[in-house]
């Protein structure tokens, strides 16, 4: 997840304070990836170092408004026009666990699949309830949809593993 580009995208809609950025970031992703204010300021100072945003004068409360620069807009456009590379994703513990379970003869693989499938289905039920309760607009629903599709893919993969292993036996 790119906090850096997320903040640039928010700033492209107009100048904002650090705190505002945090609130808007969380609102548009449905609080799925909470950001702490420290992360926001660290990211802003890096963006400033790279010439992608520039700070204004601080107001009487000591707040600083940040504005996106022309270079910042270019960087944001580049981000939106570039697909995400799969190798950016972290290693999947479940896939490793299952591969190891199959290799280690004394582990009951079907039991591993079983437990995981029930757990994943519960997660899917929670996400579906969250989606039904989602009222913060379409961006939030689409974030939840993404997680639903991912959980669903995991579930299908587990079914597939079970079917393949049954044949192999």
């Amino acid at each position: 997840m790119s906090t850096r580009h997320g903040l640039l995208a928010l700033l492209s809609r107009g100048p904002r304070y650090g705190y505002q950025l945090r609130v808007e970031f969380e609102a548009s992703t449905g609080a799925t990836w909470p950001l702490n204010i420290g992360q926001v300021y660290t990211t802003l100072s890096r963006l400033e170092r790279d010439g992608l945003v520039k700070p204004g004068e601080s107001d009487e409360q000591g707040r600083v408004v940040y504005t996106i620069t022309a270079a910042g807009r270019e960087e944001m456009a580049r981000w939106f026009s570039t697909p995400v590379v799969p190798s950016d994703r972290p290693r999947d513990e479940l896939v490793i666990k299952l591969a190891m379970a199959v290799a280690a003869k004394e582990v009951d693989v079907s039991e591993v699949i079983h437990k995981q499938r029930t757990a994943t289905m519960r997660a899917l039920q929670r996400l579906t309830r969250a989606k039904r309760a989602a009222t913060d607009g379409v961006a939030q629903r689409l974030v939840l949809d993404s997680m639903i599709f991912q959980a669903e893919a995991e579930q299908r993969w587990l079914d597939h593993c079970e079917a393949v292993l049954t044949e192999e036996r």
Partner: protein
Amino acid sequence: MTVVRLAEVARVHGEGAAAVHALKCVNLEVDAGELVAVMGPSGSGKSTLLNLAGGLDRPTSGMVHIGEQDLATLRDLAALRRRRVGYVFQDLNLITSLTVVENVMLPRELDGVRSRRARQEAMAVLAEIDVADLADRFPGELSGGQRQRVAIARALVGERRLLLADEPTGALDTRTGDEILQTLRARCDAGAAVLLVTHEPRYAAWADRVVFLRDGMIADTTDVSLVSAR
């Protein structure tokens, strides 16, 4: 209130060496207001379970109750099915030569309800599902999602409170499928009991409880931790 109850239900097709144990000792209850999803690979007994729960088939052993009624003691299963149970299938739910409202009226007219009242009941359930404006259209003029919603209306017209749905989202895209589940969920929240067979995890996730069938037995269910999580 339990709407349908299966107690130690088994179903064997054929005899002797050729016997197929489609279902083995299944216990399952669905309460009013509850949506239960059944998942499992093909051949795991999903359809057999649905047929037994709706009185389309009789168990080899064990008991099936719909409401207070023990299906084993009942001679006229067809009458009970008509009055108490609604079905929604993947396809071919509606009669193409009848309008939407006529399709929904049909089960009530078969029950002996007069046409005028049957029409009122049909319009009421169509309104509940937000498709009252489609009443005078023919099924061929509807989208796949609209047809399934009308099928749900027909399954629940009159006093039916048990709905059995077999892959009702079959050929629909995910957004339309979500709308169908939204409709089923709303009918549950209004007091219906729904037993849904699906192979799609995303739709099963709308249920209060998901039951996994494996080789004719319930291998797992999600209910325990959901109750404690509430």
